[in-house]
């Protein structure tokens, strides 16, 4: 996402959608979807139990410009006060990229990390007082215990700099899933695009499913390091994958075929340990699936490799899907 010459509103949207990703990642197990409302600068996360997290995202273009931070805080609290009236609100989050959200140098230390998530009770007294003053002045009566102030570093024209916090969170997310073969920046860009594509509508909602499935899809791709291929030369493997990738994909994505293999596998020696079971299953059964492949041009060795790789890919994909879904409670 190119950020040069971004107008204030485009910058605001960028901050808002990245804040949404951040909040999703922070709540990935409980959350089920996130909605970004451009007009009102809302980010709303819905949890699996139906409860919600309401957030106000206020961005400043220049991190050292504190002249409007207090106004932004007041505007944010006003919206959050209204949001608190909706039932099932569990958390209220004021999120900004200003390192000095209270325009009070003495409290800046509390917000000096790349990402600071501070519940009301842990805010410096001066900050608590500032919030209380605004609330009593304006008559806001929301429960302060629900309020969290969040400062996320989000500056610079350079993507690496601007998205520093998001990159770290995405990497952590992938690490939790035990996934190493996915590029952090690719995945983050994919998520960001999900918001950017709909930016014109100014309201976008993204489900956890849509955030997590791409990870699964990337993991399920056949690759050179597939166990079934380790006995073959790299160059042969590269050639076969290049030539037959779509054959392998077509079959491992076809429900009929997938269903057939998974049913066969379910009945195949359930007592065996999974690694051994998979190995033996492929060894004994791959020939049964010849009819599902149309490989007239391939020699018998190539045919065998292609079928074995496909069967292995189906079984592997199933494990990955179950594994990741379990980890993020999808």
């Amino acid at each position, binding site marked *: 996402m190119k950020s040069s010459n971004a107008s204030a509103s485009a910058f605001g949207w960028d901050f808002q959608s990245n804040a949404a990703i951040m909040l999703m990642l922070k709540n990935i197990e409980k959350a089920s979807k996130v909605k970004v409302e451009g007009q009102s600068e809302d980010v709303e996360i819905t949890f699996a139990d139906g409860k919600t997290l309401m957030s106000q995202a206020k961005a400043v273009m220049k991190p050292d410009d504190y002249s409007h931070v207090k106004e932004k805080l007041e505007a944010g609290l006003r919206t959050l006060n209204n949001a608190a009236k909706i039932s099932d609100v569990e958390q209220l989050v004021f999120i900004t990229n200003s390192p000095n959200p209270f325009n009070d140098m003495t409290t800046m230390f509390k917000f000096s990390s790349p990402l600071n998530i501070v519940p009301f009770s842990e805010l410096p007294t001066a900050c608590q007082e500032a919030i209380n003053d605004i609330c009593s002045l304006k008559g806001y009566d929301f429960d302060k215990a629900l309020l969290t102030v969040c400062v996320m570093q989000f500056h610079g024209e350079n993507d690496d700099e601007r998205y520093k916090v998001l990159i770290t969170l995405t990497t952590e997310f992938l690490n939790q899933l035990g996934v190493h073969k996915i590029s952090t920046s690719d995945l983050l860009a994919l998520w960001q695009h999900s918001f950017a594509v709909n930016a014109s509508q100014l309201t976008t909602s993204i489900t956890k499913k849509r955030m997590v499935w791409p990870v699964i899809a990337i993991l399920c791709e056949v690759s050179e390091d597939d166990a079934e291929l380790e006995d073959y030369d790299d160059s042969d493997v590269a050639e076969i994958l290049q030539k037959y990738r779509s054959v392998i994909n*077509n079959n491992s*994505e*076809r429900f009929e075929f997938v*269903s057939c293999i998974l049913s066969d596998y379910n009945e195949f020696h359930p007592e065996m340990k999974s690694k051994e079971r998979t190995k033996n299953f492929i060894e004994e059964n791959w020939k049964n699936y010849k009819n599902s492949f149309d490989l007239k041009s391939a020699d018998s060795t190539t045919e065998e490799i292609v079928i074995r790789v496909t069967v292995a890919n189906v079984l592997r994909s199933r494990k990955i899907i179950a594994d990741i879904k379990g980890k993020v409670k999808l």
Partner: protein
Amino acid sequence: MRIVSLQVNANQLTLLSDNQKVFSFGENANVIFSTKNSVGKTTLLRMMMYALGYQIPNTRGIRFSDYETVLTVIGASDENFVLTRNRDYIEVLHNGIEKGYSLPVEQNELHSSIYGISNLEVVDNLLGAFYVDQEKGWTLLNRGKAIGNIHFSIESLLRGLSNRTNDELAQRLAVIKREIQKYKHMLDVATYKAEINQLGETAFIDSPADDIESGLDILYCERKPIEEELSRIKSVIRKNTNFEKFITSFRLRVKAPNGDEVPVNKDTLVGYGDTADLLVAKQKIYFEQLVAIDRKISVLKAQQDKEATLVDVTTSLQQFDSEISRINVDAVATQKIIDKMEKERRALEEKLIKSVKQDNPLIAELHQLISSYAVRLGLDEKYVSARNDYIFTNDLKSLSGAIFHKVVFAFKISYVKLIQRHTGVCLPIILDSPSGREVSMENVHEMMDILAKDFKDHQIIIASIYNNYAFPNINIIELTDRLLPF
């Protein structure tokens, strides 16, 4: 062959009635004589050769192409040929048949028919043998330029006379020479390119328009496989959906172990949802990639439209520089190729010469002729070596003045003799100013004596400021004023 007459016609009509001039030549010795210089002796000789169809350089004050020449010669089989030349077109009247030739393309064919010699290497070298021009003639011994750009080569002449013309070698040599020429042009381009690079004049070369164009090409290349993958995924999704709809359409119900009845549809088919979600996610990934590329494409296209509306300010020189700088030529590599080919060319030339020299009886014969004439001209053996291959000598420095003059004469008349012996053609001998500055009258008379005795059957044409030559039946053409009155 003998020259009978030369008629020169003015191409433009003049006010005077006499707009043509005819020079007639005798069968034997002819002397074109004038007491003073610069009245046109050399011009007349050259005009004769011009009229014969050769590419002859103009002399001062006279452009041959301004005239029509009509040359009558006794040529092959002692038959009459009338050659009418107008610029580069020559018409030959022979046995009542007129035939036109385009010069210089058909020069060999023309001469072949007039001289009655079919071997083109011989035909090519005739002029250098029988015509001794005032300027270059007296310094041409065995190879070089006879006049203008007309070459003479003793190797080529001997090759032709002994029928050893090696077309294969000659063709390869010609090909190599042509290629060397081309590589030299390439080198010029490389040098030019290096020069504009050095001057930093290439900054504009990769114009924004080119950048956009190649950027778009790359993007379209990236786009294609993604688009294909997307459509593949779509078709799998369609197949899965159809399959699910098919199954669901039976409205099957199955019984679970706990006794519950379960309808068979997309929600209950085990693994169906996962397969569908997986495909949707894949589609999403590729779709995002496609969108990103399309975004870049539309940005570039917008730029391209903007570029197109700008006025093209590049000059044709800039355009040329730009094209040149895009040509991939490497000066060093080209130079190396040229060096290599030059080497090959020299080797081929040597081979060609060798092919002439090997076991060729003509060499001994020619050497014998030259030696005997040299002796009669009073030349010492130290000037004309006893070794046969002396005739191929490159060493002209050791010869000087009168001696060189005599050696050239000996060589030339030997060529004519050799040609006569092996083709039967009696060439004329045409000498422009045989009495050069350092040659004594005595030497000239020695030379003329040989011509009178040994070349009785040959027509002799001499241009000179003397007319005291002792030839029988001598025909003197005296030039008094201007050669051509028009």
